[in-house]
């Protein structure tokens, strides 16, 4: 199977999955594959390994769009008819840009950007990274400069977080809870409890006891400032959430053969189904391959002699051992992947599935990236 049709028919491809399974690698390799098909490709990446970034010629890891120099492809012997642009996501910067765009006045903008709580909120409010990734995606998609955009997603502890991010962020900032706190504080001026409804007073006193009084006020002030953004921001978030559900968007679920990663992908597929979203493809990355045929010490000895490998006496036995070890790893992966195969078989609209072999080295240069690309979309 191949993901080539997906690259042909969609404008946006999102790579999701749990941490470490190969999302960044898959996004970059799919980007390369599409560029080789002649497309103008943007790869929005989160956390590329420094060596991978370097091998693409991105010495400076900035969040500016950087076009990979065609000379790099030529050096690696790759025929790339299109172009590959790489952009690093910068959560804080994207959030800052949002604040600049939607603040009602320069004063309001500066108040927010200068708030002590803002720096924590802008990077660690539940779902901020995920939301800002989508926000950026939405912005570049509207620019229309690219035929295909690949989105690498943040290493969420839980891949599901990604889908809910816009809703969660909006409801966090604009929830009834926040309004309630704001009202309570506006009514009470400076927290004079006797003016409040009795339960509210109990609740606030309770929390105040935990956090120390002044803190709540600090939070309420900050929320009031953020509230200033809500009009524009809420619409924007809804728009971003909608654009994820567009038919030109594909979801690629990336997993390794590890049982927990597979479980995560199955959960995610289920959630996509519930929300009426497509589960377009599953990439099983780093699958250990079984030996192509059995082997034995005698054959190994003859071949080692023919190639003049110059191994020690028991060398051929160890060659056989290496092959057996590969067989055991492949068998473990096969066992672990059985539930995935069964679960995918039950889906009515069965997603594409592509397995990428475990390479004996990291995917940190164009040659190995091209190798992964070949497995994904030949």
């Amino acid at each position, binding site marked *: 199977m191949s993901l080539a049709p997906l690259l042909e028919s969609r404008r946006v491809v999102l790579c999701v999955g749990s941490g470490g399974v190969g999302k960044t690698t898959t996004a970059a390799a799919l980007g390369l594959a599409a560029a080789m098909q002649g497309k103008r490709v943007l790869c929005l990446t989160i956390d590329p390994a420094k060596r991978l970034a370097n091998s693409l010629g991105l010495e400076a890891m900035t969040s500016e769009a950087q076009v990979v120099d065609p000379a790099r492809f030529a050096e690696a012997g790759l025929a790339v008819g299109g172009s590959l642009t790489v952009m690093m996501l910068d959560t804080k910067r994207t959030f800052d840009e949002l604040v600049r765009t939607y603040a009602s006045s320069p004063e309001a903008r500066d108040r927010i950007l200068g708030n002590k709580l803002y720096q*924590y909120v802008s990077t660690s409010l*539940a779902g901020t990274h995920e939301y800002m990734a989508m926000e950026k995606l939405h912005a570049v998609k509207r620019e229309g400069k690219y035929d295909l955009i690949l989105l690498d997603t943040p290493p969420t502890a839980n891949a599901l977080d990604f889908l809910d991010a816009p809703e969660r962020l909006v409801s966090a900032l604009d929830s*009834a809870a926040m309004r309630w706190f704001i009202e309570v504080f506006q009514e009470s001026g400076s927290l004079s409890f006797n003016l409040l409804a009795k339960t509210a007073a109990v*609740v606030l006193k*309770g929390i105040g006891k935990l*956090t120390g*009084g002044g803190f709540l006020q600090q939070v309420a002030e900050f929320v009031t400032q953020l509230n200033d953004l809500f009009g524009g921001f809420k619409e924007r978030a809804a728009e971003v959430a909608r654009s994820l559900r567009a038919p030109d968007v594909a979801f690629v679920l990336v997993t390794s053969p590890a049982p927990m990663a597979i479980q995560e992908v199955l959960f995610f597929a289920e959630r996509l189904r519930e929300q009426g979203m497509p589960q377009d493809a599953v990439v099983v990355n780093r699958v250990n391959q079984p030996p192509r045929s059995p082997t034995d010490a005698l054959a190994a000895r003859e*071949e080692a002699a023919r190639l003049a490998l110059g191994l020690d006496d028991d060398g051929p036995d160890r060659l056989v051992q290496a092959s057996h070890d590969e067989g055991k790893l492949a068998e473990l992966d096969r066992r672990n992947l059985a539930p995935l195969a069964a679960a995918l078989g039950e889906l009515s609209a069965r997603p594409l599935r592509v397995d990428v072999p475990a390479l004996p080295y990291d995917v940190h240069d164009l040659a190995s990236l091209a190798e992964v690309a070949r497995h994904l979309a030949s």
Partner: protein
Amino acid sequence: MTTLLDRRFHFVTGKGGVGKTTITSALALSLAARDKRVLICGCNAKERFSALFEAPPLGHDVTLVAENVWATNIDPGRAMEEYGQMILKSRTVSRAVFDNRYVRSFFRATPGLYEWAMLGKAWFHAVEPSPDGTPPFDAVIVDAPATGHGLDMLRVPKVIVDVVPPGILRRDAERAWEMFRDERQTGVVIVTLPEDMPVNETLELSEAMTGELGLHVSNVVVNGMIPPLFSAPERASLLAPRALDERTRGGVAVAAGARRALRETIQAEALAKLGKHLSSPKVYVPLYFGGVNGLAEVREIARRLS
């Protein structure tokens, strides 16, 4: 010198999938083998402890999973509530606070609060006295979230100390932070793999833990070590460029040998880099070709940790 087994509080962290949960479980068994009462704290992740200890599924309640080993998969919402009840003393007040739906969504939206609830609960288990005055656990191990989230979690008490005005929350965060920064009591255990990128990440993570946060990295566990089959000259010979033909029985063996030689080379380089840049003591755990499926493997790994 304080060793891994003397400390009361351990954070086990590292990149996703490197073996944090496995190493946490093994560390618990090796502490328990020294007659320590150990608590494992999972951080609201899909838990794998029950599989490793061959015990029933694990939830928020502290459960005995092996001799001298208890485990909990902390539910941050419930941890918050327990914390509230303890501080507010009155059940009625605490109910009023925590049953208030506005308060609930406020808590959900406040960055770091759930992380603190989990971390705070783990800390509390390490210091709370039993009714008879002795601590119920001699050691607490936190199976922390993967790299970035693990760092975020450990930053929380520091942030609370920085931004929250004096009060109970601040007081507890200060106490916990003090214990976390005391290297006789607390150690960060970083789990990694003997490969290039995981090692680079480990160096960065270790730098952030010690530099930015001032914590002590007590050990680096290199998990998934492939037992070397070939000597350095043999590796060089196997890695000489040549076309590999896997259609014959002999070709299959040589190709497997060449791939193994490459992995062994990468492993040797990764270990050299780790040794050169990181002085924390290292523990090496082999790759189990048949996987880590239950107590048998975890026991074996535990022996290597002690």
